[in-house]
């Protein structure tokens, strides 16, 4: 149980660092990469929360977050491609 708490703390710090990168940029691609990383860390976080709750219902949530994260990354990449040349 202690390991679960330590893991949750590390994942929250990791997500905060990704959020900082998403806010600071500077390139649009940096924000897309940060969003992709946040989605993957969210899958891990949901799995660890499921271990903490002692139920396997969270496995469905993790699968749905994985699918939505991939769709979001692809959509954001196509959005970046339509931008004019920068820096």
């Amino acid at each position, binding site marked *: 149980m202690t*390991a679960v708490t330590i893991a949750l703390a*590390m*994942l929250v710090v990791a*997500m905060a660092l990704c959020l900082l990168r998403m806010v600071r940029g500077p390139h649009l691609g940096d924000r897309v990469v940060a969003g992709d990383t946040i989605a993957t860390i969210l899958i891990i976080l949901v799995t*660890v929360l499921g271990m903490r709750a002692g139920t396997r219902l969270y496995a469905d949530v993790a699968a749905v977050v994985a699918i939505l994260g991939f769709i979001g990354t692809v959509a954001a990449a196509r959005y*970046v491609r339509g931008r004019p040349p920068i*820096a």
Partner: protein
Amino acid sequence: MRDTAIAVLLLAGSSLSLIAALGLHRFTDAYARLHAATKATTLGLALVLSSAILAHGTDGREIVTLLFVLLTAPVGAHMVSKAMYETGYRPWEADEQEPGRRRRR
């Protein structure tokens, strides 16, 4: 013994995610950040899902999630990096005159 294996896998996976986020925060340009973040979080996810399977067993959902992420993470990273390159964003290069200095392009 089993609890030890569960804890070690869980902490290793979480540490890899934290290291990936540190790389995302510290590296010099978006390509290096993509390189750091994509691979380390995928391996971290594999370790944490193995830990969850050891703890509670599986009916296949965790394995499906892992296979899906293993298939789609490289595809997404490739699409993002190609889109960034097509906007005219070029990778960072070291300055030969002053090796310690960072030059952004």
